[in-house]
């Protein structure tokens, strides 16, 4: 996983609540057995006027001019400003993959759905929770200033606005540590393999049926 260094990026606003994972990446793209190739289909139903499918030629597609992220001023954004309960719905990690492959590295919202929030860290995407009132202020500033950029510093746990205002945020220490260092979760957990094996031995001895494999 890529390390998360200090990010200075263009901010794009998505002004709606409860943005669900079906909207972030519609079901037809979940048929892929690959981990990449989702960026072109991020927000597919909102972003395009036609219906996308795996294998469609991106050059042939009609962009929806009414979708805010399609506006010229937000092209190249790496920070998504969103409303509450972002990422609700399914556990599909294809949602953070799609956002990351679309170019987003950090999402700032008042709240996130639990599974999505957790999945983000696995894809090197940083979800940042800020109070609703601060989010409201950021939406106003983005709208008012073309080319609005924020600096996200995970080490310092602070977002800095163009005017120099610093907004603190908090990330769980273990998640922060892994994202900052680009550590592989599985590798880290396997350092505890002996402890897991020891636990398992006692656990399965107490409940041997957990290890059952009924005959077909």
């Amino acid at each position, binding site marked *: 996983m890529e390390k998360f260094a200090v990010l200075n990026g263009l901010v794009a606003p998505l002004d*709606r*609540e*409860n943005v*669900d994972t*079906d*909207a972030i990446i*519609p*079901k*037809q793209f*979940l*048929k*892929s*057995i*690959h*981990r990449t190739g989702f960026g072109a289909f991020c927000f597919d*139903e909102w972003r395009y006027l036609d*219906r996308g499918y*795996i294998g469609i030629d991106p050059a042939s597609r009609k962009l929806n001019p009414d979708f805010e992220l399609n506006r010229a001023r937000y092209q190249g954004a790496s920070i998504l400003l969103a*409303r*509450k*309960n972002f990422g*609700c*719905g*399914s*556990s*599909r*990690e*294809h949602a953070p993959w799609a956002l990351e492959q679309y170019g987003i590295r950090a999402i700032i919202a008042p*709240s996130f*759905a*639990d*599974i999505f929030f*957790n*999945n983000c860290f*696995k*894809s090197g995407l940083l979800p940042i929770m800020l109070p609703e009132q601060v989010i409201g202020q950021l939406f106003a500033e983005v709208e008012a200033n073309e080319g609005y950029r924020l600096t996200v510093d995970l080490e310092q746990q602070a977002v800095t606005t163009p005017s120099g205002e610093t907004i603190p945020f908090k990330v*769980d*220490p*273990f998640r922060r*540590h892994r994202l900052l260092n680009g550590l592989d*979760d*599985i590798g*880290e*957990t*396997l350092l*505890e*393999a002996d*402890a*897991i094996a020891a*636990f*398992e031995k006692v*656990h399965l001895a107490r*409940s*041997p*049926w*957990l*290890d*059952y*494999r*009924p005959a077909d």
Partner: protein
Amino acid sequence: MGKTLYEKVWDAHVVKQGDDGSCLIYIDRHIMHEVTSPQAFEGLKLAGRKVWRTSSVIATPDHNVPTTERSKGIDDEISALQVSTLVDNCADHGIPFFSLEDRRQGIVHVIGPEQGATLPGTTIVCGDSHTSTHGAFGALAFGIGTSDVEHVMATQCMLMKKSRNMLVRVEGTPAAGVTAKDIVLHVIGVIGTAGGSGHTIEFAGSAIRGLSMEGRMTVCNMAIEAGARAGMIAVDETTINYLKGRPYAPAGADWDAAVVSWRGLHSDPDAVFDRVVEINASTIEPQVSWGTSPEMVLPVSGRIPDPAAERDPGWREAMERALTYMGLEPNTPIGDIAIDKVFIGSCTNSRIEDLRAAARVVEGRRVAANVSLAMVVPGSGLVKAQAEQEGLDRIFLAAGFEWREPGCSMCLGMNNDRLAAGERCASTSNRNFEGRQGAGGRTHLVSPQMAAAAAVSGHFVDARSLA
């Protein structure tokens, strides 16, 4: 201080507690399907890692599979590849697998309990958010993303933080014809789709205890729609009776030992919850969702709300957006909404009890002329066989329903079962998000009885009036 049910199961699975707030939690059961697993297997392979304990896994294809005749395999090449990838991966790693031809194939959250692979007091994960379903057995069950699917395969553990405890107590006797689905839709209407965020919800109270296991699964299934990663219900005789004799359940002396330990799986009287919500079951009516979020729900006697009367600007905007998408006018009585399609199925409502309840409403009636498709998709091959043995298939077929093969089907429309743009559906599934059942499709979430009643009436109607 006493413990909550959640804390009891959590504490029994802590392998290691970090000083940074994280815990390594041992996972007893891992259920797998074709959509969220291929990249996990790929990752495992690239790193040269093995599956830690193959006996913990069961796998089946469900999301992507056709529900029509499928003896010749899957037409759609991309879907076929995804399913065959699961077949190969399971064979390579020695993972128990229920193939498309196996009678035990079905929706992951239907077959786990059906096989007795879902057991009280266990930790259960699956790359699917509706894994919360299994919490009906006093298990701690939650959905995970693909990276965690890989992590659990490689380490048999999850790295996570303990959530907060929330109690939803539903007391009283629901009126006849008010189902588990109506209870949980009502609860979501009360606490909202983010109401349970960061919490594990325990559902308790006399109305919950009075439910069958099927009903309890319906309730826990939708805990995720209330924002909670997991929902749980205490173990009682209903739980124990359901499990006895199932293939993966303990047998003989193991059964007796297991039952003794399971009986302790309830919150202690002095357990402390971070949040408690009290619901009176006797006031709940059959529910119908009207918008694009499960919290946008009303009793069947209600009218579509008017955004103009809403004070909160964020919510007003969400309502307006939802009504535009749904093609609905404020103040329309729910009963005046005509439908185009009916879907009875999904991991929320495709078990035998659901099919029986729907069949009772349908029996002796015909699908209304304006309904272009009414389909029943049993949750598993075994549910289908049971229903056929009881003659339910003939009731549905005689009324003009289609009787399909098991799978997720039109719950998410990854196969050919989809709504066309603008089509309106009475659906027993769990999500009414924009485009969920097909791009531009309009979903109304209801109970099996209510879906059946809508099918034969052509519009929403209180199913109790057809009893």
